[in-house]
């Protein structure tokens, strides 16, 4: 595409200048500068929490930047609300299409316009014909497949004469053929001079459709350029943590548990459910098995299904040799498996109760004859507060008033008070500060020393590398690689999580 040499001549369709954004004390974007020209397809890549979505939400007028300016075709614009952004010709196609399920396709597309319905109908028909798409306008939106819903979202943007389309992980829920047709559409739009931001976790796609690549990490652009200048290794490099050096793999004593004849505590065979398929893994006593993968790779669906919260399609879960497939949560906890959920606010804590009530809530059944045994409750609470260094004013402090790190320690305490044999930790350090992170790591390592089998699910690859004895990577609902010992490196795990790991030729 020869239209790429224009930097001096043309004015960018959209210029982002020194945009910064923080939420409370958490800096999400630091002085982002980005220029996008007509017809550019910009692949926006970055790990979880890199700031991609925040940047796009600022463009869409959902968030306001703390500092910085946005120019469109050279003119400064104020994107103070979604309707302001729409008026400027920006349209965001969200990852989960935001349709109105109870309305028809046409109603979904023309809603929010000021023109006459009949005019809109004619324009819409012409547009669809022009694109050569096959989409019945009188169908109810809830009957559409995800791919069709995405077409509707794109049509919404095009009918508004949007010049800038933002596609947020558009392929994450599409089948192979649907992706092919989506790529054709993107290519069409590119030819028509529409600028596209394309957010993706799939690095292979970048080379299929992007014209430019922008890599975000920790709220900063680490690499940027025409797609021809990149290869997959470079993309991985751009995603790696800032002060990361390739050879830092800490020494660890050889714990080749697999060969020592010990039976695995958690044994999962050909396990399939909604969002993941054919999972095989074993976790041995005193071992931390890391599970890496990007958001949406099916890790959490897998974990909650093992824990009995969703339907098992096929396969078996054995806990210490006993079949626990499809049992109820309460039964699974009793048998010695516990799960620390990903979102502690949603699932982990009783936010208006005090620390004591939270820690002991999981074991009340064992502490009582009929009335709660106060002494035992107090002892147990003190034990966890001291061991985990939970910073509280007393056993009776409300958990909602603790910091994120201390909340997470309470959640861990609650889980461990049940004396589990196997623990599944889902993102145990998300959103907590460095000090508390160290404490959580210490707790996890102590558990391991006590012989608990731990399955550590995390998108923080450094964390997985630091803690795990073995690692499996999950990619699009399947385990695509297993790593042991020295092969557990940030490079390898990152590549495997993004589905581009190639086994080195071992000499």
């Amino acid at each position: 595409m020869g239209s790429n040499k224009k930097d001096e001549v043309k004015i960018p369709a959209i210029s982002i200048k020194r945009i910064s954004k923080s939420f409370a004390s958490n800096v999400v974007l630091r002085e982002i500068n980005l220029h996008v020209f007509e017809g550019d397809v910009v692949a926006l890549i970055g790990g979880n929490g890199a700031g991609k979505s925040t940047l796009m939400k600022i463009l869409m007028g959902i968030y306001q930047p703390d500092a910085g300016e946005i120019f469109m075709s050279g003119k400064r614009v104020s994107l103070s609300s979604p309707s302001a952004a729409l008026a400027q010709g920006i349209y965001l196609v969200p990852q989960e299409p935001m349709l109105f399920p109870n309305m028809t396709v046409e109603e979904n597309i023309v809603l929010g316009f000021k023109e006459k319905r009949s005019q809109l109908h004619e324009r819409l028909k012409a547009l669809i014909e022009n694109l050569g798409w096959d989409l019945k306008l009188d169908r109810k939106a809830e009957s559409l497949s995800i791919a069709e819903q995405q077409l509707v979202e794109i049509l919404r943007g095009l009918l508004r004469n949007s010049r800038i389309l933002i596609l947020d992980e558009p392929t994450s829920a599409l089948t192979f053929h649907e992706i092919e047709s989506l790529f054709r559409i993107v290519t069409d739009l590119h030819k028509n001079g529409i600028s596209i931001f394309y957010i993706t976790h799939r690095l292979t796609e970048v080379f299929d459709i992007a014209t430019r690549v922008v890599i975000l990490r920790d709220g900063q652009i680490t690499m940027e350029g025409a797609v021809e200048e990149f290869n997959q290794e470079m993309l991985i490099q751009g995603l790696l943590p800032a002060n990361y050096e390739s050879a830092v793999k800490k020494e660890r004593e050889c714990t080749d548990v697999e060969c020592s004849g010990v039976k695995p505590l958690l044994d999962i065979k050909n396990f399939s459910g909604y969002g993941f398929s054919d999972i095989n893994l074993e976790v041995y006593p005193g071992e931390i098995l890391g599970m890496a993968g990007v958001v949406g790779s099916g890790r959490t669906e897998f974990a909650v299904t093992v824990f009995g919260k969703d339907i098992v399609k096929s396969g078996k879960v054995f806990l210490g040799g006993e079949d626990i497939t499809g049992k109820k949560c309460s039964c699974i906890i009793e048998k010695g498996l516990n799960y620390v959920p990903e979102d502690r606010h949603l699932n982990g804590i009783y936010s208006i109760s005090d620390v004591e009530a939270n820690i002991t809530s999981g074991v009340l059944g064992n502490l009582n004859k009929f009335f709660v045994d106060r002494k035992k409750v107090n002892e147990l609470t003190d034990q966890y507060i001291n061991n985990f260094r939970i910073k509280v004013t007393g056993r009776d402090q409300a958990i909602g008033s603790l910091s994120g790190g201390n909340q997470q320690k309470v959640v861990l305490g609650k889980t461990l008070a049940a004396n589990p044999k196997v623990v599944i930790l889902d993102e145990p350090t998300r959103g907590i500060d460095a000090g508390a992170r160290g404490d959580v790591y210490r707790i996890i390592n102590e558990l391991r020393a006590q012989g608990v089998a731990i399955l550590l699910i995390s998108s923080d690859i450094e964390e997985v590398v630091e803690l795990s004895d073995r690692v499996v990577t999950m990619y699009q609902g399947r385990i695509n690689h297993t790593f042991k010992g020295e092969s557990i490196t940030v490079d390898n795990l990152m590549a495997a999580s993004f589905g581009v790991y190639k086994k080195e030729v071992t000499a």
Partner: protein
Amino acid sequence: MNKLIERITQTREVFTVVFMFVLFLGTGIVNPGFLAPDNILLCLNGSVIYILLAIGISFVITTGDIDVSIGATLGLTAAVCATMIRDGSSLLAASATALLIGAIIGLINGLGVTKLRIPAIIMTLGVNGVVRGSIYVYTEGKWVENLPAAFKRYGQITLAGFVNLFLLVTVLIVIGVYLYIKKANKGKYLAAIGDNMCGATLIGIPVDRTRILAFILCGIFAAFAGIIFASKIGFVTPTAGNGYEMKAIAACVLGGVSLTGGVGSVIGAMFGAIIMSSISRILVFLQFSSNWDNTITGILLIIIVVADALIQKHLKEKARRERLAARDLFVAEKTCEEVGGVFQ
């Protein structure tokens, strides 16, 4: 089975009309007197107040909120309107005052729910208490009686010998609102907000403003019902309209307006209101005590809401599974070239 569920969710109004016919015919089989034209007309005329309340609250329910203050709003506006007319005001001035009061109560509800982010049920429950209390203050706990005969006669005006004026006006309003929602660009805003609030924000719909508007309309319709109440009944007690909100909500739900928002039409709400207001009459014709009226309304409300919630949950879960399954299919198709290639 799934097909059947989808069919029912898509043709909710039809379901309501069929239910109404079955109910009326069933009662008519037990007691043929029920199907006499006069009686049917009485049923329809008696439903006017409920229809107006149900239309008003259907706006709010469609956006996914709720308003339980409409019974009290009806009571206050009826009392104010009746007092003013008794004291010699013109019908126009009294009606305008009543409608304005309704609009203000709606505005307060709307501001509390959108700007102060108070859950709609709590906000309107509080307002319900305030408004009900202010009726007692306003009337000093006395009935408003001795209304001029001319005012009470509006309820008896009929056209072509049998069509009641109020009923005619109400049906015209229903048709007008229905057509506006169906045809106008902004008509679908309410449903869009109830269907997917984030999505509505994203395409530039003024979400807060529209929700406030729904509450205001709801208040105005309750006030309109209050004026008709005063004219039809001929006197206003401090408890006027007490419990009407449950009937109006039940009417909406029975008419296919989903409590989760986004689904339903005023036509459905109208038929629901006709059924709800006829229940006490049906009970009499079936020789039950009409004391069962509220109990049956409550039971119907719960049954329909539970059934609706189960259907919604089923559909949601199905969509989630389809999405996850699509992801799985993607891998299956790509396995050979991508994952396989990596292993070589």
